[in-house]
């Protein structure tokens, strides 16, 4: 789902940012376990990074807001291990394994961690030349898909300028639904004025850029 609570840019009412002095990497041991399980299972190749994000975005908005970051990761991970058939809902309820495993496509090993874990690569060969070049004026599309997208609401149907081409990358909107549907698309940095995004009262000193996939853009 795209029009839900995770898409927070420009919202009001959440209060001040509260930095925590000398913040620990994990606030409790279980957070580290969730982080590590997510990395290990993420490397198995069953779902894409955006499939993982989508599982958080489809949490009930009230749950999303009431949960800490790693609670959300955990709730998303629970959903995924069940929906991808790794663990049965009955096993989660029982708290222990009730049947044998099905093999994973890939598995993270100790050698991967020793490096330590390197982020995946998301650039792919292109099948067509980029439609836009730096300096081009573009307008973002007005889309409201019921499924995952990386075009935030505040930057839809807005006019901006292409600042850079970042290569051809896995397209989140399709890869979220099917890890094999990478559907690579050109990726651009597109800059908007504060006024274009937020209206006449916007601070004239601000400009905001998003990383926009080519299907998000039309010539302006």
């Amino acid at each position: 789902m795209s029009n839900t609570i995770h898409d927070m840019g420009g919202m009001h009412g959440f209060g001040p940012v509260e930095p925590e002095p000398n913040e620990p990497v994990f606030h409790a041991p279980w957070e580290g376990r969730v982080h590590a399980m997510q990395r290990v299972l993420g490397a198995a190749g069953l779902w894409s990074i955006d499939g993982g994000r989508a599982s958080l975005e489809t949490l009930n908005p009230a749950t999303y807001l009431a949960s800490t970051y790693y609670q959300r990761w955990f709730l998303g991970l629970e959903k995924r291990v069940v929906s991808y058939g790794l663990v049965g809902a009955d096993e989660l309820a029982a708290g222990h394994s009730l049947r044998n495993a099905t093999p994973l496509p890939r598995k993270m090993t100790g050698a991967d961690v020793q490096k330590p874990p390197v982020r995946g690569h998301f650039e792919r060969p292109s099948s067509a030349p980029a439609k836009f070049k730096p300096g081009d004026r573009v307008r973002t599309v007005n889309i409201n898909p019921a499924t995952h997208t990386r075009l935030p609401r505040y930057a839809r149907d807005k006019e901006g300028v292409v600042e850079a081409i970042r290569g051809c990358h896995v397209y989140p909107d399709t890869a979220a639904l099917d890890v094999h549907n990478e559907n690579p698309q050109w990726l651009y940095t597109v800059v908007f004025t504060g006024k274009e995004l937020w209206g006449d009262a916007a601070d004239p000193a601000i400009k905001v850029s998003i990383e926009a996939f080519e299907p998000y853009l039309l010539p302006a």
Partner: protein
Amino acid sequence: MAENDHDHDHSELSDIQLRVRALETILTKKGYVDPALLDQIVESYETKIGPKNGARLVARAWIDPDFKAALLKDATEAANSLGHVSPVGSHLIAVENTPETHNLVVCTLCSCYPWEVLGLPPVWYKSAPYRSRAVIDPKGVLADFGVTLPADTDIRIWDSTAETRFIVLPMRPPGTENWSEDRLAELVTRDCMIGTGVPTL
């Protein structure tokens, strides 16, 4: 009511501890995860991968114009050329603060952050207040960090909506002309490389 909510939060927390333990037990039994491997991952983020890595890039860029040019051209390649402790995957982009423009990095949709050079993001970076306000009220956000920019400075916000990752190259503070690279690196905090801080003596 408030007290009930409070109790509820506590039971939720212990509930999640039990559920995380149960999930690890199930996944281990099935052979999907190895607890020793999980230990190694946790340890690497707790002890090896953090903002000191990014600070090395910044300090080197401050003293070596060729490295700075390489960093701004291709930060992934430049970072990896230092034999970095955490190899940088695709696709790191360094953005330079100047007297005219201050850069601020956010991920309004989730928590995208350059782990390899800054470690895991702090809670505030992943929080609703930061994600909601950085793109509409960056000066207010900077004020929350005690940062005030000169009135004529433009602010450029980078919303990390794809797998590109951003690190801010802050301005070298005056009065550090003869400093060593190591000493300079100590000035470069995590927040300086997100844009919610500036290096100060």
